[in-house]
Structure formats: structure tokens, C-alpha cells
């Protein structure tokens, strides 16, 4: 092992501190804005810490009084949850059998490569027919329609993760169960799926994060509280009539909480999911 000189140790700590500041400062500022009185945020010189923390905006955005700004926000929160939930469920249901099939039968693998290659497609290349198609089916401005469209992003990705997950489960275990007379579904139930559970969970979390983050399709295919998701609601809020930057920041904090919590809690699983995909290509 290399012996570290004191200078090097100091250098490491300085860099670590710098990195921490770079990561945290913008996030901390988002939170500070959300609890600062409006006047503080328009002050020159800027006040970096509020004299009195003001959490009223959280109550305002989370209130459910009919036809209020809060109702608009909470409905978009609900829509985001519904869309992400539905799309994730569907993506996993598609990904598990497909991922397993490719993992165990490499000769069909080219079709998955084709599916994954669609990742290159910019959403704008699909948006016009999707818009017309949803319109034809009466699915514009519905959470169901949006969830369906999100499969374009979620399904290839989850299938890819599932496939690499199944790859790491030895075939011999499955083969042994089959020899004992278990059918395919039984083998899955007893052997494969319990072993693949962590991968399923990781894929689902990724899918939720992707759906939660999506903006372009939501902007095009939703128009009001019945289906509008959080990302669009925040963009609307930021572009509309708000004299109070704190309110925009509050909406941002609330929208960021679920994915950030998922990220922090599930860190290890997410990183291993990313890197296993990354290493294997």
C-alpha cells in the first residue's frame, strides 16, 4: 500500500469538502428558498438564511381545498404516483418473462437488442403519431394513456436489467427443479423469482424514477388536473404568475422528495443495478 504523505491527506480532505459543497449547496439553497419569506428572497444583498423559517408554503401546496392552488398541486402529485405506478407494474410484467426468455434462450436475444436500440429514438420522433393515436383512442389527458406511452421508455430498460439479473442465476438450479418434475411456472415461482427478487425490486425502482422524471410526453399528452403530472405542474408554476420564488422552490422540494428518498435508501441496489448493466453493456 502506498504511504500517504500528510500533504496528500490534506489535499484529499480539501477535495472531499469541495465536492460535498458542490453537491449540497444547490440542494440546500432549494430548501432554504422554500422556507424563506418572499422579501428575503428579493433582498439585495441576498439574505442566505431566513430570520424566521416559514413553512406555510408546504401547507399551501398540500391543502386540498377545492379549486385551490393546493388542489392543483396535490392532484398532479396523485397523477404522478398513478402514472409511475401503473407504468412500472406493466413494465415489470412485460420485462420478467421477456428478460428470462432472452437470458435462457440467447437465440432470441437480437429482438431484445432491437428493443433496447429504440432508446436512441428521440421522443420527438414518435410524438406526432402517438399524439394522434392517443387522440383516436380517447386516451389523451388520461393517466392510463400516459402510463402506456411511458412503456416506450420503461419497458426496454427494465427488460435489459431483468435479463442481466437472470443471467446471474445459474441455469443448473432451474434445471434441477425441472428434473424433479416442476413445470416452468412452478420453477419460476419456487426458484427463479425469489432469487431474482432483488433485481425485480431494482428494476421497479428505476422504472419509478424514470416515470417520475418524464416531462416531454406529459407536456404534450396531458392538459389538466385529470392527468397532468408533477413535472408539468412545476414547469407551469415556474412559468406562471408567482411573485414568490419560495413557492416554486417548495413545489420542487416536494416533487424531489420521493425520488431522493428512494435514491438514498436504495443506493446500493441502484448503483449495483446501474453498474452491472454498465459493465456488461
Amino acid at each position, binding site marked *: *500500500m502506498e504511504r500517504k504523505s500528510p500533504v496528500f491527506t490534506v489535499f*484529499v*480532505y480539501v477535495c*472531499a469538502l469541495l465536492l*460535498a459543497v458542490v*453537491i449540497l449547496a*444547490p*440542494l440546500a439553497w432549494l430548501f432554504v428558498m422554500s422556507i424563506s419569506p418572499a422579501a428575503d*428572497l*428579493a433582498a*439585495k*444583498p*441576498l439574505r442566505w438564511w431566513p430570520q424566521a423559517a416559514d413553512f406555510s408554503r408546504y401547507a399551501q401546496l398540500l391543502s386540498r381545498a377545492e379549486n385551490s392552488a393546493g388542489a392543483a398541486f396535490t392532484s398532479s402529485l396523485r397523477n404522478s404516483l398513478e402514472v409511475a405506478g401503473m407504468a412500472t407494474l406493466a413494465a415489470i*410484467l*412485460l420485462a420478467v*418473462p*421477456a428478460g428470462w*426468455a*432472452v437470458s*435462457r434462450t440467447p437465440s*432470441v436475444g437480437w429482438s431484445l437488442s432491437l*428493443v433496447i*436500440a*429504440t*432508446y*436512441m*429514438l*428521440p*421522443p*420527438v*420522433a*414518435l*410524438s*406526432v*403519431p*402517438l*399524439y394522434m*393515436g392517443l387522440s383516436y383512442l380517447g386516451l389523451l389527458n388520461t393517466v392510463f394513456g400516459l402510463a402506456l*406511452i411511458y*412503456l416506450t421508455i420503461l*419497458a426496454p430498460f427494465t427488460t435489459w436489467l431483468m435479463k442481466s439479473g437472470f443471467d446471474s442465476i445459474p441455469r443448473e438450479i432451474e434445471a434441477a427443479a425441472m428434473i424433479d418434475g416442476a413445470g416452468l411456472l412452478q420453477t419460476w415461482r419456487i426458484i427463479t423469482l425469489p432469487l431474482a427478487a432483488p433485481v425485480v425490486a431494482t428494476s421497479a425502482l428505476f422504472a419509478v424514477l424514470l416515470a417520475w422524471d418524464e*416531462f416531454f410526453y406529459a*407536456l404534450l399528452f396531458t392538459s389538466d388536473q385529470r392527468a397532468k403530472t408533477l*413535472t408539468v405542474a*412545476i*414547469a407551469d408554476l*415556474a412559468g406562471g404568475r408567482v411573485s414568490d420564488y419560495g413557492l416554486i*422552490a417548495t413545489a420542487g422540494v416536494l416533487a*424531489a422528495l420521493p*425520488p*431522493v428518498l428512494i*435514491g*438514498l435508501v436504495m*443506493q446500493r441496489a*441502484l*448503483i449495483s443495478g446501474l*453498474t452491472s*448493466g*454498465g*459493465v456488461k453493456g
Partner: protein
Amino acid sequence: MSGTWITARAWLLMLPLLAIMVAVIGWPLVDTVRLSFTDAQLVGTAGNYVGFDNYTKMLTSSNFTRTLITTTWFAAISVAAEMVLGVLAALLLNQEFRGRAVLRGLMILPWALPTVVNATLWRLIYNPEYGALNAALTQLHLIDDYRSWLGEPGTALAALIVADCWKNFPLVALIALAALQAVPRDITAAALVDGAGPFNRFRFVILPYLAGPLMVALVLRTIEAFKVFDIIWVMTRGGPANSTRSLSILVYQEAFSFQRAGSGASLALIVTLLVTVLAVAYAALVKKTAGSAA
């Protein structure tokens, strides 16, 4: 069980996925191709066949060239910066120091932050009158006067790139870190014994381990950066004077704001073709590095 049956079963299991993919990707793509040869409007007229008119019109417009250059700059610089910063951060996080686990945990935060929230946050930070960046730089006496970061063509794209990098370099760092941890200790130790300096150790011992994962990250980030829409839409909408307009935003304008579905579709396909060429070139590169790294 016969091989045919296994293959057939595999196809059967793939069927739901493939059917959905054909419905939400295959068909729309084919229809986009059809639309691109018509003068269809988004709402109303179905449009007539116009041959390659849309393509020639789009490819020869100055808007397209300019936007292509803007997008390329955005993608090239932000991805390059993300790679460099990501690897540097990973090398740092691979050192032993107190608080390393916490710092590594923090890295996931920017990545988890929704893109739109990130864009909104940075727009507030860059606010020319009341933004935190102006305030901080003035209070530190680095600038004399508040500036219009998103209002000047000289700084707007750079400001967007910074916001994009901040969100995405931690991901590269985490991927690179995982790869670094796979480098066997005895190899670095052996290199040290051989008298290799820090740079040579990085170049010849560590980099081969990083190359594969980094290449994949590079490909994915480049494709994403080339398709960029959200962050620009929220922060500048393409302004000032169209200096930050990306290809995706140009397509949106054409197809949805001006409702020219036909020429919008042709533009979208041109973008798709560019991304594909890029991806194929990269894929070849990945194969090469993977081969040489092994």
C-alpha cells in the same frame, strides 16, 4: 425438450413485450416516416404526398444548421465535462478518508432530483435580479455587478451545461467508482513497486478497468444530451435569440407550435438518423476499447 420448442417458448414469453413495443414505438415510427412525406397538419388536414420537400426544406434552412451546431456543442461539452468530473470524483471517493461513505451517499442526490426540478432550481439560481449566483459572486467580489446569465448568448449555453453537468456527473462518478473498486489491489501495488508515477499508474493500470463502463456511460449520456429537451425548455425555451435552441425544441416548435406535423416529422427523423449514426459509431468504439482493455 426440443430446441424448437424452447425457441418457440422464448418467443411466446417475449410476445407481450414485443407486441407493446410494436404498438408504442414501431407503429409510431413508421407513421412518422409516412407523415414526413406529407404536408399534414397536426389537427385537421390529413395532408398530401409531397415527396422529399419537407426534407430539403428542413435541411437547407438556416435554423436547422444553427440548431444542430448548438445541440452538438451542448452534448459535446456537457458530456466531456461530466466524464472528466465524474472520473476525478470517483478517484477521490476511492481514497480512504473519514466521511467517505456519507459523501458517496450524497452523490446520488443530484441524479435522483427530477430534471424539471433541477432546471427550475438553476433558473432561480441564475436569476439576473435576485439569483443566488449573482448574490454570491458579488458578495465575494468576483463580479462588480449582477449579470444576466441566461440572457446573454455567451453565457446562456454555458449556464445550461453547468446545470446539466451538476445533475449528471455524480452518476458517472458512481459508475467509475464501482469499476475502480474492481481493480485488484496487487496490480496497483505491483505498478508502484515498478516505480510507475501517479499518471502512468492511472493511464496504464487503472484506465483499462474504467474504459468499458465509462464507454457505456459515455454512449448513453451522449445520446441523451443530443435529445435534450426538458432542461432547455424550462430554463430558456431556446432563447436568447435562439442561442440555446436544441434540435428537440426545434421539432416541437415545428410540429406542435406551428402544427406542421409533416415537416416536423421529417425533422424528427433527421434527428433520429443523426443519433443513430452517433450511436453506431460509438458502439464500434466500445467494442474496440472493450477488446483492448481485456
